[in-house]
């Protein structure tokens, strides 16, 4: 078989997905075959390419839906080939010789041409993507909805980090006390009425360890109720508490 000379895994039929991501079609397959023959497109043997093409789609294990475009091309090739076999009265008939009919060659060249154009567009796209406009800097998290994406693990890590530093501090005395998260929530609400942003680290600066934990729980509770937004630029950074305007009104 001629086809066995070509690495069968060289060409992959990509399936058209819902997002319209289809990469290789029958024309790509034809081009791949033509290039593997290493002859000019006008000298390609119709018999050979028809055989290879049909063998190829036969060998590929894909469903009929995905194959449709390939089958259409396959039947077209077979049609051209059948024309070759039937005697024609017209001497100038295109289908007389065992080469690809002009209309197919035309289509293949056309396709190649637009592939080149697509490549150019890619370059232009890359260039355009390198021009950054104002606001491209990474601190533009003020966009709203993005806020609610809190990485809980990072938040907890930052909290643990802080607890460690608290425990080391000599100024802290840990006494038994009762912590009411409800009270802390109310306290935070009062502050947030006046201020748009509260630093977590500053807020809990003089609190006892137990109250800090209570405050943290209060924060999580408030975030759950979508009352506040919790923002942290990077791990170990201060946690900023902001009023959630999106759901408040």
């Amino acid at each position, binding site marked *: 078989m001629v086809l066995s000379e070509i690495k069968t895994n060289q060409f992959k039929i990509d399936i058209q997905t819902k997002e*319209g991501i289809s*990469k290789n079609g029958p024309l790509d397959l034809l081009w791949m075959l033509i290039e593997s023959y290493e002859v000019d497109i006008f000298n390609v043997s119709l018999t050979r390419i028809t055989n290879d093409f049909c063998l190829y789609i036969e060998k590929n294990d894909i469903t009929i839906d995905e194959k449709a475009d390939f089958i259409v091309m396959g039947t077209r090739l077979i049609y051209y080939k059948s024309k070759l076999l039937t005697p024609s009265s017209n001497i100038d008939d295109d289908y007389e010789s065992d080469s690809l009919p002009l209309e197919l060659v035309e289509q293949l060249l056309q396709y190649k041409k637009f592939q080149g154009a697509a490549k150019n567009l890619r370059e232009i796209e890359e260039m355009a993507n390198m021009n950054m406009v104002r606001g491209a800097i990474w601190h533009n998290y003020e966009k709203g909805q993005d806020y609610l994406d809190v990485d809980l693990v990072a938040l907890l890590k930052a909290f643990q980090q802080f607890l460690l530093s608290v425990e080391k501090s000599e100024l802290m005395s840990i006494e038994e006390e009762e912590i009411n998260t409800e009270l802390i929530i109310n306290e935070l609400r009062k502050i947030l009425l006046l201020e748009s942003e509260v630093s977590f680290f500053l807020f809990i600066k003089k609190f006892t360890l137990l109250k800090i934990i209570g405050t943290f729980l209060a924060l999580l509770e408030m975030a759950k109720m979508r009352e506040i937004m919790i923002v942290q630029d990077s791990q170990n950074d201060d946690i900023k508490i902001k009023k959630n305007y999106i759901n408040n009104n």
Partner: protein
Amino acid sequence: MNDLEKTKKAVEAIVFISGDGIELSDIAKGLSKTNQEIKIILDSLIDDYQERDGGIFLNQGGSKYFFSTDKKVFTSIQYFLKENKKETLSKAMLETLAIIAYKQPLTLFDIEEVRGVNSRAVVTVLISKKLIKQVGQKESPGKPGLYGTTKEFLEYFGLQDLKELPPLKEVKEINFEEI
């Protein structure tokens, strides 16, 4: 300071505060000037920045004007960017876009004829991305929709108009050994 200088300053300031771009006609409306007057001013501002050859340039994409950084500093500023890489279009999308851009207006059938594959899905995605739109209907049986590129297409690729697209290279001229 004469009136023209004043307007020029204002136009520059407006484009600056617009961030990712402002339409020429919007500037004209806001300043109670004609589009032509503003166009002349913008063109001279573009020249000013080009002459200066600094880190930022005044650019035109479609009918929008915006300040953007110089490509040459892209790698240096990459660290500061929120997303290091913008989402790019897939090969199928670019292929279809190229066909539409050069042959518009054209029908879905025309696109499929060039690509050899069913292209309805790709066209739908491109429409949802606002890169193409239906621009009319062909006067043929079934009245199929004709598609063309949008001004968002020009903005996306940073082109002033379609004439800026590189000319199509005929494949016949290409040596086959090169492919």
